[in-house]
């Protein structure tokens, strides 16, 4: 057990090295993670489905290829045999895809998402599908139809959302890597509150073919991991052009792994966004943020202040654009082609009434709220005032970013205004819930890439704080360059990864640590 415990705490990069050196087999690694899932997921509930048989079969295949040696072994992808979890918004053959919704309960996709095809081509065992807010609508996973995920740092608290399952799986050492999707912060905000790393690539940088769409002009798939380098490694597997996604950028992928390995901030200009810290941000978040600035300054970066005055409209504009697009995207759930069909209790069985009953039973409250809000914003007479105005705000936000990036190479802010709050605390106040994404939404509105990495623990509650880096569109490599530097400076201060300070989640270890809090 001790050996396995050490295995699951290794980074994906370190695991890859051990696998290549044949110090450990992919089956051993995959089994260690499956054992960990069996031991702790009852408490964390990061997974909606565990894919043990297929994962072990893929791992065995990798081991056989390595054992045989020769060209096939030499051609194995660097992450071959390194397991991964997939957010349940991304379709997979052979496993159910629910999107966290009752309307898709038990549905099996007849095709793989492009990113999943790429994981399979790299021979990465897929451990299972992770929990999320229904159709990725939420900031806490409490809107999952299958129950919330619990934050591994404090099981009574939210793991963020919508990708709380992927972030918690990685934080609880149930997977070394995971895939997420980010429409307004759903990769970065869970990363922040669970002490993990998450990246939203440039819009179009990773194919979305096979990601169940929420808001098509905002959605992006990206990596979830425990280290900056691991995210770069995964980003490189999933990134690059895909003709099946017409928004996919044709540009060749930069060497993101090299950027993470050769991180350097000397002479770089790093811009603090005036509007994204201070008032409304928890004191402990602010403190850790300021410390990170000092560390970057010490490493030779120049800290400048930039102002993005239109960011104050971003949240409002987002809550018009996102529901508008979501209401249109979710119209396909009609009780005919896939998923649930519910018949009305009385009266004639017409398609109209079957659809009404199906969607009433299949969608949760938050999804209904957003569909109604989107239908409202798109309705005749309101379109210009709402959707039209929000699209103009997008232009203003893009202009703010342009001006900011004329003064700075990357921008920096806290990822979220607070640390993880208690499960249930904001569930009945949609507006308070939406405020969690205030710092992450501008990137989606403008299509620029963003990365969140752990910045330490807040003084007042001992919970993780996230630091967000933002770069111009197509300059994702800068995030890895700066992120890797900041990570190594912070870890030198902490004496190791932040997750070393997280509770172990297994009873025996809790008592041996004397119940650390």
């Amino acid at each position, binding site marked *: 057990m001790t050996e396995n415990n050490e295995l699951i705490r290794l980074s994906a990069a370190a695991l890859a090295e051990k696998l290549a050196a044949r110090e450990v087999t992919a089956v051993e690694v995959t089994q260690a993670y499956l054992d960990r899932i069996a031991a702790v997921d009852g408490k964390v509930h990061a997974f909606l489905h565990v894919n043990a048989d297929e994962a072990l079969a893929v791992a065995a295949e990798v081991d056989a290829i390595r054992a045989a040696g020769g060209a096939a072994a030499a051609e194995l992808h660097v992450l071959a045999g390194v397991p991964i979890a997939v957010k349940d918004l991304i379709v997979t053959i052979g496993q159910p895809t629910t999107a966290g919704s009752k309307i898709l309960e038990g549905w099996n996709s007849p095709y793989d998402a492009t990113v999943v095809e790429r994981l399979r081509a790299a021979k990465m065992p897929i451990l299972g599908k992770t929990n999320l807010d229904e159709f990725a609508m939420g900031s806490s996973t409490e809107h999952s139809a299958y129950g919330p995920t619990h934050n591994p740092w404090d099981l009574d608290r939210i793991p963020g959302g919508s990708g709380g399952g992927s972030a918690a799986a990685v934080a609880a050492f149930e997977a070394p890597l995971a895939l997420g999707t980010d429409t307004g912060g759903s990769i970065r905000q869970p990363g922040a509150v669970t002490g993990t790393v998450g990246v939203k690539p440039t819009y179009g940088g990773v194919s979305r073919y096979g990601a169940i769409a929420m808001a098509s002009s905002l959605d992006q798939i990206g990596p979830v991991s425990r280290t900056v380098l691991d995210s770069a490694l995964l980003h490189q597997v999933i990134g690059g052009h895909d003709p099946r996604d017409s928004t996919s950028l044709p540009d060749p992928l930069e060497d993101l792994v090299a950027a993470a390995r050769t991180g350097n901030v000397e002479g770089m200009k790093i811009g603090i966004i005036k509007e994204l810290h201070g008032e409304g941000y928890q004191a402990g978040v602010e403190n850790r943020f300021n410390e990170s600035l000092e560390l970057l300054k010490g490493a030779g970066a120049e800290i400048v202040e930039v102002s993005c005055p239109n960011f104050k409209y971003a949240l409002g504009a987002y809550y018009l654009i996102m529901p508008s697009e979501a209401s249109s995207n979710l119209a396909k759930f009609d009780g005919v082609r896939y998923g649930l069909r519910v018949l009305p209790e009385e009266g004639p069985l017409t398609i109209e009434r079957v659809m*009404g009953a199906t969607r009433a039973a299949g969608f949760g409250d938050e999804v209904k*709220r957003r569909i109604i809000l989107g239908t409202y914003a798109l309705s005749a007479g309101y379109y210009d005032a709402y959707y039209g105005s929000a699209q103009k705000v997008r232009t203003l936000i893009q202009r703010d970013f342009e001006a900011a990036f004329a003064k700075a190479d990357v921008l920096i802010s806290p990822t979220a205004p607070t640390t993880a709050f208690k499960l249930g605390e904001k569930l009945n106040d949609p507006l308070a819930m939406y405020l969690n994404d205030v710092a992450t939404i501008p990137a989606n509105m403008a299509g620029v890439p963003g990365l969140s990495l752990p910045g330490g623990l807040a003084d007042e509650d001992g919970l993780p704080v996230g630091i967000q880096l933002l770069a111009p569109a197509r300059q994702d490599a800068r995030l890895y360059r700066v992120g890797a530097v900041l990570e190594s400076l912070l870890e030198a201060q902490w004496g190791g990864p932040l997750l070393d300070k997280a509770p172990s989640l297994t009873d025996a270890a809790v008592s041996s640590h004397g119940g650390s809090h």
Partner: protein
Amino acid sequence: MAAINRDDVAHLAQLAHIEMSAEELDRMAGELAVIVDSVKSVSEAAGDDVPATSHPIPLTNVFREDVVGHTFTAEQSLSGAPDAYEGRFKVPAILDED
């Protein structure tokens, strides 16, 4: 900008094909009124001279070769359908009358 009321929500729910109980309509109307109120500043943010952005990184003329790509078999397409008949989706009656 007009506030959103219970009748609006009932109408919108009908347009969106979501059946709602009286209690749900009341609750939704209250919640949406708060949300709509909080986003209304957006309509005053930009002047007439600001163009709209529909896509963050617009691509134009995204074409592919006119060749048959991957297609699903009828069986695959129907595999998730709640009801099917002889290789087709089975749809409830479109019209109310018989």
